[in-house]
């Protein structure tokens, strides 16, 4: 009974503190533009309407904006993820029918903590628990591709529409690609020893209280924002440079809508490249700013994040060459389809 009493007492102060912090965050966030104008023209006295002033204001407006968004989202996602351990996700997916399973797996890919170095044990843990191969692959596609950092950066730099389309398309690729591989019935192309691995109980789940979950959210912020802030600043600096100076269609001739071959080319170039979601943003920013078509650039970005040579080498331990090729092929086709669709509708 005693512990129940303590828990009830934690909440009011927690909610109050959270609301207070959120209010400060909101006030600061919505005054950033004003503030950046004040610094640029008031404090530093830079001339109005000059290229450098515009670029400078863009930089000191966008940098805190994106970093604040990133901090908030990474914190919230960190807390949400504390509810979805891989063990729990496996329990949810086990025994689901294929199509429902593909949808669920893609969605759970967003909220389950995942690191590509764990792709192999995760794969084995899933298939030995009886989760269909296609459903497992839906998860393995969605987890790296639908990335909260990329989502925040796209939202911050290009608006909510681009971010929403990236999210939706990432999910659809994960669902459809996993489903297609399931239909191809390629279970025998999984390395034989995988299914021979017995399913063991693994870790029992820890019961976390709210304070521990908040701590996990803070750890995520320290870990992720601490790692990517530099890339974010470079990306924005590139954007600021373009904002002020470079003519808008330098890239248009060979990465613009007119060039049909640019989408497959973007994917072919993107696959061998390996970068985290934040590292790719400066490149995306530069390409877009110089007139490359959005679909082409998104295809490039998805190919870099979701498909990479190191990942292929890791997955080769559990997938025989044909299945590995099918996996990369189906995802690459999906990404190209997104690229074309984007270029077509925008």
């Amino acid at each position, binding site marked *: 009974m005693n512990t129940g009493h303590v828990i009830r007492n934690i909440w009011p102060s927690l909610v109050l503190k959270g609301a207070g912090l959120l209010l400060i965050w909101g006030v600061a966030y919505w005054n950033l533009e004003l503030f950046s104008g004040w610094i640029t023209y008031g404090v530093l006295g830079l001339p109005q309407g000059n290229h450098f002033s515009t670029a400078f204001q863009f930089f000191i407006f966008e940098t805190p904006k994106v970093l604040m968004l990133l901090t908030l989202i990474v914190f919230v996602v960190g807390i949400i993820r504390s509810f979805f351990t*891989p063990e729990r996700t496996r329990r949810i997916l086990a025994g689901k029918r294929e199509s429902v399973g593909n949808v669920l797996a893609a969605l759970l890919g967003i909220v389950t903590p995942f690191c590509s*170095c764990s792709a*192999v044990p*995760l794969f*084995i843990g*899933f298939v030995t628990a009886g989760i269909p191969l296609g459903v497992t692959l839906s998860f393995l596609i969605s987890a790296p591709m639908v990335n909260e950092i990329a989502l925040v950066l796209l939202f911050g730099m290009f608006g909510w529409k681009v971010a929403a389309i990236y999210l939706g398309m990432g999910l659809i690729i994960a669902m459809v690609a996993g489903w297609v591989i399931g239909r191809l019935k390629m279970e025998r192309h999984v390395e034989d020893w995988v299914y021979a691995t017995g399913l*063991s109980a*693994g870790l029992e789940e820890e019961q976390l209280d709210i304070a521990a979950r908040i701590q996990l959210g803070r750890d995520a912020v320290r870990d992720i924002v601490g790692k990517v802030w530099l890339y974010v600043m470079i990306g924005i600096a590139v954007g600021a440079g373009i904002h002020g100076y470079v003519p808008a269609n330098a890239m248009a001739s060979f990465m613009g809508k007119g060039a049909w071959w640019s989408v497959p080319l973007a994917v072919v170039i993107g696959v061998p490249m390996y970068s985290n979601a934040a590292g790719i943003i400066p490149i995306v920013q530069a390409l877009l700013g110089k007139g490359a078509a959005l679909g082409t650039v998104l295809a490039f970005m998805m190919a870099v994040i979701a498909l990479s040579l190191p990942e292929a080498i*890791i997955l080769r331990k559990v997938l025989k060459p044909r299945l590995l090729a099918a996996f990369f092929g189906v995802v690459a086709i999906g990404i190209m389809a997104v690229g074309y669709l984007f270029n077509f509708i925008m």
Partner: protein
Amino acid sequence: MKKIQILGTGCSKCKTLLANAEEAVKALDIEATIEKVDKIQDIMKFGVMTTPALVVDGVVKSAGKVLSADEIKKFLG
């Protein structure tokens, strides 16, 4: 005599965990063997789905996290 095993296929996080475990053992001044398990077949026998993982005397204590030396001490005490 404790038997500590670090499960991981060699990513940087696994190396950090290994170093932290060594630090924890040194700080506690206990007798312990530290072994790195990096073959995926062997890792799977412990039933973990995320690496790096910490195993003490055959029992999985944590998975998917880089524990600090202080956190590891708790599992050794």
